[in-house]
């Protein structure tokens, strides 16, 4: 099976196949034999070249969050087409700003027609007794405001549109 994995800005071509009880994992042309047992919950015990890794693998959106020790690393799996789209700048055009967490809208800091700069606060959402400013992802103009103060929002809810 072929997979394109993205970690941060780095892109890796991965090929995985079974060999008896093990896996042959090739990353960017370099191959290694890996023994991986799935244990309770999200845990895997991975032995590779005598080295032991205890990782947990959490499904997250288009990829996985891998935890090893106290470190965590997000690995995204992308197909070529989608990757190209993202690389060519998905940030052009109108963009919907979403709430990154469930909570309550306490203040809306912009109106339709306002000019905003990247990083400028747009909406303040309160969760866990903490007010959090949701910032503009780019320079632009507000074309739509979809929430009002007092409103409860889910994670991923559309707040405003910046164009």
């Amino acid at each position, binding site marked *: *099976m072929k*997979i394109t*994995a993205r*970690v*941060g800005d*780095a892109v*890796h071509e*991965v090929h*995985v196949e079974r060999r008896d009880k093990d*896996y042959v*994992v090739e*990353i960017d042309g370099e191959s*290694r034999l*890996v023994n*991986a047992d*799935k244990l309770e*919950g*999200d*845990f*895997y015990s*991975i032995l*590779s070249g005598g080295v032991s*890794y205890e*990782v*947990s*693998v*959490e*499904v997250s959106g288009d*990829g*996985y969050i*891998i*935890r*090893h*020790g*106290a*470190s*965590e*690393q997000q*690995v995204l*799996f992308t197909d070529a087409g989608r990757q190209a789209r993202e690389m060519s700048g998905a940030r052009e055009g109108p963009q919907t700003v979403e709430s*990154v*967490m*469930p*909570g*309550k809208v306490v203040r809306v800091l912009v109106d339709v027609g306002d000019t905003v700069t990247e990083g400028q606060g747009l909406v303040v959402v309160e*969760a*866990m*007794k*903490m*007010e*959090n400013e949701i910032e503009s992802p780019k320079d632009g103009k507000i074309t739509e405001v979809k929430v009002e103060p007092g409103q409860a929002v889910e*994670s991923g809810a559309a707040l405003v549109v910046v164009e």
Partner: protein
Amino acid sequence: MATSPFKKILIANRGEIAVRIIRACHEMGIRTVAVYSDADRDALHVRMAMEAIRIGPPPSTESYLRIDRILDAAKQTGAEAIHPGYGFLSENAGFARACVEAGVVFIGPTGDSMEAIGDKVRARKLMIEAGVPVVPGTPPLGQDVDKVLAQADEIGYPVLLKASAGGGGKGMRVVNSAADLPSLLAQARGEAASAFGDDTVFLEKYVLKPRHIEVQVFADQHGNCVHLGERECSIQRRHQKLVEESPSPVVTPEVRATIGDLAVTAAKAAGYSSAGTVEFLRGADGSFYFMEVNARLQVEHPVTEMVTGIDLVRTMIEVAAGAKLPFTQDDIQLRGHSIECRIIAEDPSRNFMPSPGTIRGLRPPQGPGVRYDGGTYPGYEIPIFYDPMLSKLIVWGADRPQAIARMRRALDEYRVEGIRTSVPFHRKLMDSKDFVAGNIHTGYLSEHPELLKPNTDPWLEEIAVIAASIAHFREVEQHSARKSVMKGGSDRSYWKWADRGGAWRS
């Protein structure tokens, strides 16, 4: 030990501190009553208590801050005493008095002594009279913004806005210039009002690069009062503590005796009883300024317990029942070093953005020298209404280097799935040269944003790609296998649900 001071105690709190108090009660053979809002029916404190009473809808103003409903629950269950924990009603003198009026023992100081030293403004006055150095500041601010601007000018920028009623950084703002003052004043008042139901704020000189060092005091109702050493709590974000330790790396036995005596004097002057904390700012020159008194049990009390061997919650209960302090100042011996990390449901790499959600998997660290005070469990959905603290991870070591090494090991064992937590940040902090050397101050984290960034070791990236690829391979493989079990069935979403943790909770 032989007989319990109370038969039944109601815990007017939630989360890890409710669990902590329940454990102390059960060890003393005391029955426990939990109270819960609708958001907390399945919370750990409800599971662990022997009795549980619903007190209202999720917002704390309609549940955990409702004195009437909590006293009703006490009456209904026959609880003889109430432990308020920290936060919520713990420093509410009206609640302490209402308990007494209802014939229930309040496990904490009296309403009068709470008011005498719990209110920051009154406490400052008390300290100034006693000759204790305090940071320059103002009385409660009025509504006239121009006058506030003049008051700030007199102190000199930067100044600090602080809520009179509360702690924990709520309603607190640093103001660097007059231009910022009006909007920050409004924010601070708004936060104070929503957190404490009281929007009174005041101004204080902002001491640069200060260390937060606090002294634990303990007094009984018979005039005995001792201190149990200090805690260093300088690692903070947004004025909230993230790491605490005891002893402080910069406090010598002589300084400990000095600030300890000062703290005991303050507690005695206010007729204080129960556990309390006297907070100081320590400037870079080693001078201590009185900051405030917390007239309650602190979040970070476990580090004091670890080095003194004294169970503070048990002792609070005994003292509330009228017992004399079971120790004198000479009995208090500090052994070794203890560190606590507050593990919070926030994403450090996104500037501590709240990360509520469902805890899919949870493996707390274990083994020698590790104490885990948690308030959650696998499958638990963190409510958005309350504090984001998941647990306190506390370690003990024979000295500070051993304690740091043990904390590293414990953080490496600790695994929380389903949400982002502060664990990666805490782990990086334990490796930072400044922390290891003890060179910290309350602004340390804002000066070191690199501690919030994720780890980027190349070998970690490699193992992450290997693990994710194998997991993906297995998922695809199993999905195909199950499809054939289904004989053409197509309910894919259900399968995904079953595969991805549905069994945690059904």
